[in-house]
């Protein structure tokens, strides 16, 4: 018997029935694309095309077209890489960790969040790939494949290689998890399909799902196992991304707190992106009864918690930098030198966007308001981009030798490749939101009885 305490807010409003859920979600897939969808798609495609030009020039000319210099060998490229990987984390957190914790409120947001994870990881993977300059040789360089280049072999001691393993595993598990969740819903769409093409397409996608009790049993079993696998993966991916920096002896990068701090930051930024996307989706796709004020508040609370963890990590970095007594520490991204140096604007952008503005979420009026939540979610996305930019560029810009000190100036190709991934991300997400059910119908139906508000 399921019991739900009366102090819990309903998770589905408007007195929906099980049938209403099917209707509300499938309508989007079955109908014609809306005008706003077309407009969004057009903008995304333009960004994608402009970006594609930058990518083409980059591959054609080599990475010299970026603004990197001898002192600052990583800048926007790796910043964007870490930013995108981080965004991906929220999807897995919602789908796996919240599943293990049996949080019912994940039901109506997990599908979109998982899709976001997959698209974000694809965008992230663009950067290390393009950074290699010769993308087509990347497989030899990044994977431990037997090759014909003599003794050339991957460096197993390098965290960059661990990254390849971690992210490819993460991507695979996330994809399988997402897809298995989609199968029952594809079957629903197949069963409702009125024309031959969609019957065939969704029929193929649903793998002959028959909805038998035994099939459901297996489905739930697989979901649990994948959740168990995905949970350590969420931790491992950003841990290893943090190792890219922390295993070095660069002041500001070499810090033992990096692994958990990066994971917390990743979830922080990922939830901000989930909010950005879902706040738009709930309006455009008319999902107000499924993605409720309660959902937004709960996501904002996760943002408060992970933001708090990140703030403690910043304070720790600042403090230990001073505590070591090492003079180089005064040039790291979290130091007095950073707050007053040539990159002070980037330092303060980070503090304002990641701590001060999200701090307003402590007020209930702010975190339950859709507009303020939307604005803050975008601010956090910007702030978390600056966090990675600060860690990478500021720490590199002050080399051990003052004669090597440098600044980084992005070229249009730095910006262009970033625009490319943004275009790619939104194109993929819009395609998803049109052709796939954006809410997991099967799972939402399972909580209609226990967590839905009654019709007035």
């Amino acid at each position, binding site marked *: 018997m399921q019991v739900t305490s009366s*102090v*819990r807010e309903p998770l589905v409003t408007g007195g929906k029935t099980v049938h209403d859920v099917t209707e509300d979600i499938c309508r989007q897939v079955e109908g014609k694309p809306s005008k706003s969808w077309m407009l969004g798609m057009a903008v995304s495609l333009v960004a994608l095309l402009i970006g594609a030009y930058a990518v083409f020039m980059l591959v054609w000319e080599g990475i010299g077209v970026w603004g990197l210099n001898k002192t600052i060998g990583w800048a926007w490229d790796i910043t964007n890489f870490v930013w995108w990987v981080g965004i991906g984390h929220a999807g897995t957190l919602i789908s796996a960790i919240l599943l293990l914790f049996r949080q019912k409120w994940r039901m109506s947001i997990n599908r979109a969040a998982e899709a976001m994870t997959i698209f974000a990881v694809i965008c992230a993977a663009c950067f290390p790939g393009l950074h290699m300059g010769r993308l087509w040789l990347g497989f030899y360089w990044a994977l431990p494949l037997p090759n014909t280049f003599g003794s050339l072999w991957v460096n197993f001691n390098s965290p960059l290689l661990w990254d390849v393993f971690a992210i490819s595993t993460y991507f695979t598990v996330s994809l399988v998890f997402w897809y298995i969740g989609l199968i029952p819903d594809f079957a629903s769409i197949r069963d409702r399909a009125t024309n031959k093409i969609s019957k065939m397409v969704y029929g193929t996608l649903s793998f002959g799902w028959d909805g038998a009790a035994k099939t459901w049993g297996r489905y739930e079993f697989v979901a649990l196992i994948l959740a168990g696998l995905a949970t350590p993966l969420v931790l491992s991916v950003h841990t290893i991304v943090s190792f890219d920096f922390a*295993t070095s002896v660069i002041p500001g990068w070499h810090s033992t707190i990096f*692994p958990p701090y990066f994971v917390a930051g990743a979830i922080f930024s990922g939830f901000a992106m989930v909010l950005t996307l879902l706040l738009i989706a709930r309006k455009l796709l008319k999902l107000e009864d499924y993605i409720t004020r309660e959902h937004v508040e709960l996501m904002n609370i996760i943002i408060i918690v992970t933001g708090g963890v990140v703030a403690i990590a910043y304070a720790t970095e600042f*403090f230990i930098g001073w*505590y070591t007594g090492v003079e180089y520490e005064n040039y790291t991204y979290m130091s007095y030198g950073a707050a007053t140096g040539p990159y002070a604007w980037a330092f303060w952008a980070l503090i304002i966007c990641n701590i001060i503005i999200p701090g307003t979420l402590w007020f209930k009026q702010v975190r339950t308001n859709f507009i303020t939540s939307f604005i803050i979610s975008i601010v956090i996305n910007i702030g978390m981009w600056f966090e990675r930019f600060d860690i990478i560029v500021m720490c590199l810009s002050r080399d051990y030798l003052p004669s090597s000190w440098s600044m980084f100036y992005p070229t249009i190709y730095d910006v262009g490749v970033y625009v490319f991934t943004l275009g790619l991300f939104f194109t993929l997400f819009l395609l998803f939101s049109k052709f796939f059910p954006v809410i997991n119908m099967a799972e939402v139906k399972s909580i209609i009885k226990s967590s839905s508000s009654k019709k007035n």
Partner: protein
Amino acid sequence: MTEERFSFTAGAKKTLVILGIVGVVLFVLGTVLSMSGGHGHEAHGEHEETALNAQESASLLASADAQDEGSAHAEEHGEAEAHEAGHGEHHESAYWLKRIYSNLWVNNVYFTGLAIIGLFFVAVQYVAQAGWSVGFLRVSLSLANWIPIAGILMFVSWWLVRYDVFHWTHASLYGPGGDEILQGKAPLWFWPMESGSALPLFYIVRMVLFFALWYMLFVWIKKEIFAEDINGGVDHWRKTRKYSVIFLVIFGFSSSVGAWDWVMSIDPHWFSTLFGWYVFASWWINGLAVIALITVVLKQNGYLSIVNANHLHDIGKFIFGFSIFWTYVWFAQFLLQYYANMPEETVYFLQRLEVGNYTWVFYLNLILNFVLPFLLLMTRDAKRHMSLIKVVCPIIIAGHWFDFYLMITPGVMKLEGGFGFMEIGMLMIFGVAFLFVALTSLAKAPLYPKNHPFLEESLHHHI
């Protein structure tokens, strides 16, 4: 729901008193042995190999330290320690006394953690609106009754142990010819007093403030929780939630600073940004194990029938998961310092790995706190059976005592740390006192909150 009350019977008290007496006897025995055994080197004299290793590592450590200390203090470690007295300073305490001090501090920190985690667990359950855990929330809350005692013990014993446990308290380190690195850090401890002052004001103020805040929140939360029994309704639940949020914010900050102050500053040259969370992870998993163990023992004595295998399964998952989390934090700290191989960082692990007295603890720590809980709690059934919880929790509880032993002892005792009757005895004394306080308070109120808004959910919890 009817009320259920725990009675702290005379029989149980008697058992605890006997255990306490055994602890005192062991402690006295250990002290006498360490007095007659003399210093660590002689004590280990019969093991030629150990002594050799110790010497090797002594020179290793001295060379590593020479790099980050002022030249005047390079001799700090190893046999040269006795010269310290020549600075016109406080004389080094006798070996046995120093060992008692070191031990006292290990238990201070360990039991402080246990007490504060009792409150932390409750606060997390309230903030997260967790329904499953209602049945044993009060077991967790009862641990927090140790907070004021932990505070007083820590505050009083600090003055006693400071010159032996906290190297940075020595006035000769500051001023001309002193230790440059510690001079830089001095304001953290002494501000606004002069560096090397007998009153490290900033440090002491922090200690008092943290315990005061923790205790204050504990009193507030406790008051609301018990008022709910009488008045019912959800207002007390909401208020407890509010206080829990305030507590979590304070705890998030103070647990890290406490770890720096009370543990990391024992090795004053060494630093690790992860250290605050490492200490937290150790406290947290240990607290979970104690909560689970007390719950199971209560159940086996006929109490808490509302807690069943489903609830145990969930707390078992927590123990399993956070054992892995502790290992994760341990590994992150170890790997990054090992990989970068900077002398001022690796010295910490060299002291623990290369000094014969501690090598076994280093590996034991990993076996007790990772390997065993990981393997034993892996299956679903293991988490649902009281017999296995009763095996795994004591392993973890002992394991994390060793974890704190390993964080503190090498910094205090250098090459001469030991483990014997003294350590076991003092742990037993602290443990008995702790249990007395916790169980006494547990007996004062109903065992579970009958008006908790999630009680019904917890009763029907099924996984």
